[in-house]
């Protein structure tokens, strides 16, 4: 029973791990912290996996747990954070089918997101991932109206950082 659950979890996670990588990229600024947060998300997901009933998609559930871990549970690593890492680590992405302009855009987007506070980061992330307001408000535990108001403010902040 436990083995079945475990292998199902490993498969589910492996297929959706990119979500967690993205969350780690926006909430951390160096590779060590990225790995730490990634590991904590895996722990939290596995800890709660038996409670996952499958009434929502695994990925939806993953968004929530990953963001919760980043915002509330993760303790920033005590290791000194080297800011110069920001430019290098987050974008080790396959650039073959990706043109330079897009890569530069993505870089400045990540850089701008890093300047937002934790809650705004979550809002912007869910916007970029094209999540409906219903899901956003449910994930954060605020009303849809408030989610909209706050989202507009977060977008405004992001725009100002991107186009000063």
């Amino acid at each position, binding site marked *: 029973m436990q083995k079945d659950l475990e292998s199902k979890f490993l498969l589910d996670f492996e297929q959706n791990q990119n979500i967690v990588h993205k969350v780690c990229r926006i909430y951390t600024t160096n590779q060590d912290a990225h790995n730490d947060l990634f590991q904590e998300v895996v722990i939290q997901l596995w800890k709660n996996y038996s409670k996952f009933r499958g009434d929502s998609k695994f990925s939806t559930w993953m968004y929530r747990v990953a963001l919760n871990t980043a915002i*509330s549970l993760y303790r920033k690593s005590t290791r000194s954070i080297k800011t110069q890492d920001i430019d290098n680590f987050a974008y080790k992405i396959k650039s073959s089918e990706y043109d330079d302009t*897009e890569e530069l855009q993505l870089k400045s987007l990540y850089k701008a997101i890093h300047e937002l506070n934790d809650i705004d980061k979550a809002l912007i992330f869910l916007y970029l991932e094209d999540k409906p307001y219903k899901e956003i408000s449910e994930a954060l535990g605020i009303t849809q109206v*408030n989610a909209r108001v706050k989202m507009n403010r977060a977008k405004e902040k992001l725009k100002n950082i991107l186009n000063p």
Partner: protein
Amino acid sequence: MDLDTYKKTWGNQPEETNSVSKIDIYKMAHSKSSSVVKWVFILGVLELSLGICLNLFIPDSYIDVYSDFNLIGFLNYYMILSYIIIVLFLILFYKNYKAVSAVDNTKKLMTKILRVRKTVKYYVYYNLIGAFILIIIINSVMFSNKELFAKTLNPNNLEVDINTLMSGALIIQIIGALMVLLIIWLFYKVTYGTLLKKLNKNYKELDSLEHLK
């Protein structure tokens, strides 16, 4: 450039090159969590057990002093009551800790983490107020029996003015109490302050959303 263009770029971003293998995911899933809640829990257990340890390690000679004032019976009742209250706090603390789940929505999760922390805070308040009341009761009993108190403070019957002796005892107690308060305050500032700084900030940020309307 508008945000929609960035959104498109975001959507086109390739998958992470350092994807984690099943074996590594398995290893990670079975490693120990180092979450904020876990640290709040460990600190809480330490604090709750500190109360118990203090009760257990009070030297007998310290208690003997009170027997002269017929306070032993009262202190025993107080001790039993303290243990009952500590057990109640432990149950409450554990229940609150177990209720924390990463599956909840963000706001609920934060509220639950802060509730675990609050249990410990109330426990400390209880201890401080309890100790304060106890000191007042013991002192009023002792000070109301001046001669016996003077004898206890000055067992070798040295020639000292009784009033100087008693005000000295009072000052020492006040300084002691202030120092204990200072240590507790510093402890809180350093431990929970650092641990929950981020959480408190995020909670305020999220909570302020509720008052937007």
